[in-house]
């Protein structure tokens, strides 16, 4: 049975169903059992599963990540949550040196089934340290998996797969997606890590993105169709390590034009990876246009007056596509969009 639920509820439901199914799943993080329950994603879990399996934590990100690694080595499947991805930076030592290396450095004698949920913020003046898209830091590391869903349905299926996975999985959520709704099956189901999906079919150009970027790409694709008669295909990567090479190449072979839309800064990032995959695997004659787009290479400022020019959004995407299609047209010349408040469906807090 499907119901219309948002991403936050889908994540909550995935966690609950896994905790019911597997007695060795437990979850902790700052605020997990508090009244706000990590934006609703953990609400009610402590009541259902008790304070041994659902608990708050000291503000000790690196230590607590180590604790989770140790518990994972000794038979458990822990989930850690960070209300902002930036707090996880305090635990990079345990994530990169320990969790990511353990299976390899023990020649497979011990593995680390661990999910670390991290939430990316945006808008309302959150500024330099509460709105970073740091996915490529994690995706750079062999031994980690990095999952970045867009839709509620994918969030649930991918979180279940992440919890069942025998490896450390970095599960990155975008705060603005928590309130997006979709028909989601009530049943326990999985979506394979490392598989993308076609979010919208098209034939003229491929927009390749992930997580919140899909929201902007879908909006752009609608405008391109309605106002400019350009058919843009949108590829939702869903996970960035491992990356679904085949879905990228298949789409590019069809459209021959590619715009990789990064959620973050372009340099050394996911869009760079997408373009490398294409140029490594296809001949020049198969590619008519190839480009990438991302955020301005400065920290995100707090004031909306500047933040509006920081982010890449559907307007910049549409204009870039028009340029790539050799069109002289411009969608909106000046960006008057205040990018600090999300779609109307979003209800705070940030």
């Amino acid at each position, binding site marked *: 049975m499907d119901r219309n639920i948002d991403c936050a509820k889908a994540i909550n439901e995935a966690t609950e169903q896994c905790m019911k199914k597997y007695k060795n799943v*437990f979850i902790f993080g700052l605020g997990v059992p508090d009244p706000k329950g990590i934006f609703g994603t953990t609400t009610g879990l402590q009541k259902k599963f008790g304070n*041994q399996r659902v608990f708050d*934590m*000291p503000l*000790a990100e*690196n*230590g*607590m*990540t*180590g*604790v*989770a*690694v*140790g*518990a*994972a*080595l*000794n*038979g*458990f499947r822990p989930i850690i949550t960070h209300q902002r991805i930036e707090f996880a930076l305090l635990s990079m*030592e*345990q994530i990169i*040196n*320990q969790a990511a290396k*353990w*299976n*390899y*450095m*023990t*020649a*497979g*004698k*011990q*593995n*680390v*089934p661990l999910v670390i949920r991290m939430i990316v913020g945006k808008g309302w003046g959150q500024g330099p340290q509460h709105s970073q898209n740091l996915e490529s830091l994690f995706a750079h590391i*062999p*031994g980690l*998996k990095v999952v970045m869903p867009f839709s509620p349905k994918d969030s649930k299926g991918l979180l279940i797969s992440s919890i069942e996975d*025998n*490896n450390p999985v970095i599960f990155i959520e975008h705060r603005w997606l928590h309130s997006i709704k979709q028909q989601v099956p009530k049943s326990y189901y999985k979506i394979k890590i490392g598989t993308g999906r076609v979010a919208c079919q098209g034939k003229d150009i491929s927009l390749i993105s992930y997580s919140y970027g899909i929201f902007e790409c879908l909006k752009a694709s609608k405008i391109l169709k309605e106002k400019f008669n350009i058919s843009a295909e949108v590829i939702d990567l869903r996970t960035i390590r491992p990356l679904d090479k085949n879905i990228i190449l298949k789409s590019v072979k069809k459209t021959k034009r590619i715009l990789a839309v990064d959620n973050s800064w372009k340099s050394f990032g996911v869009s760079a990876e997408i373009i490398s995959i294409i140029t490594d695997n296809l001949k020049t004659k198969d590619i008519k246009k190839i480009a990438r787009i991302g955020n301005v290479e400065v920290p995100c400022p707090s004031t909306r007056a500047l933040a509006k020019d920081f982010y890449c959004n559907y307007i910049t995407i549409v204009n870039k596509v028009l340029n790539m299609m050799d069109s002289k047209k411009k969608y909106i010349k000046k960006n008057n969009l205040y990018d600090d408040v999300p779609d109307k469906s979003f209800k705070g807090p940030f």
Partner: protein
Amino acid sequence: MNNNLNKIYSKMIRIRMIEQKIASLYGEQEMRCPVHLSIGQEAVATGVCSQLKTNDIVLSAHRAHAHYLAKGGDLKKMLSELYGKENGCVMGKGGSMHLADLVAGFYPAVPIVGSTIPIGVGVALANKMKKNSNITCIFLGDGSTEEGVFHESLDFASLKNLNILFVCENNFYSVYSPMNVRQFEKRSALNLAKSHGLQGSHGDGSSVMEVIKKTKDGIKYIKKNKKPFFLELQTYRFIEHCGPNNDDNLKYRNKNEIDKWLKKDPIKLAENYLSKKNKKFFLDKEKIINKINIEIEKSFNQAKNARFPSSKNLKLHLYG
């Protein structure tokens, strides 16, 4: 007790002889990995591990050889690991700094200072959730007490009342950096542990008898109170931080200090004690040494002759 102590002495001198053999063959450049030898620190490893059961889990750090061997880690697999061979304890993927023997209850060691402390706490948390009362023993050095993660881990161990024996081996140096450039004068690891809510004690890590007694008391406390315990033992490494050589020529350690600790060589202290109890001790010692020499010879030979892992292993084991 005497018989038991004889066994413990054998284990200590076995570790010493293995480490000395590694040092003597290191120049052949066949063991191509950094080695942090435990010579001088054998009493701590041996004394503590003598009080642990196989199912009690031990975690260590960069200077792990003595802990691995004292906990019952397989010698052949350890040496093969140092030689980078396929039959090494982690198939040559870790080297000296990542020794592991899960059968013996010795979890993989790691060289990043302090990193196994929270991992050990997590192992103990898992035990508690499984209603398993085994001890988790975490060896750490004086340097790691300066890491933030040390404090994070002790707080959480205390908060959750976990069965952990923290063993701080204070050898006074972090590589070449002495205490007085790293810690204020009156700083005490034990007091820090106490302020995190742990009980603890300290002692001389040269005397295996003292180590055994302090460990016994600590374990008794843990079992009775279901709470962690912190043991600080002073000890001294006799050779360089990393590598096979004596580096006293560098003069970063005071001669009086070195002499004081050499006089307290844990092997000699144990021998003095045992020879007073047993007139035939030195005859026994010869037998023990001969036996160990044979084992060492065989173990090094098999490691030298073992196969290297084939190229296909490079990409294996990335994910579980």
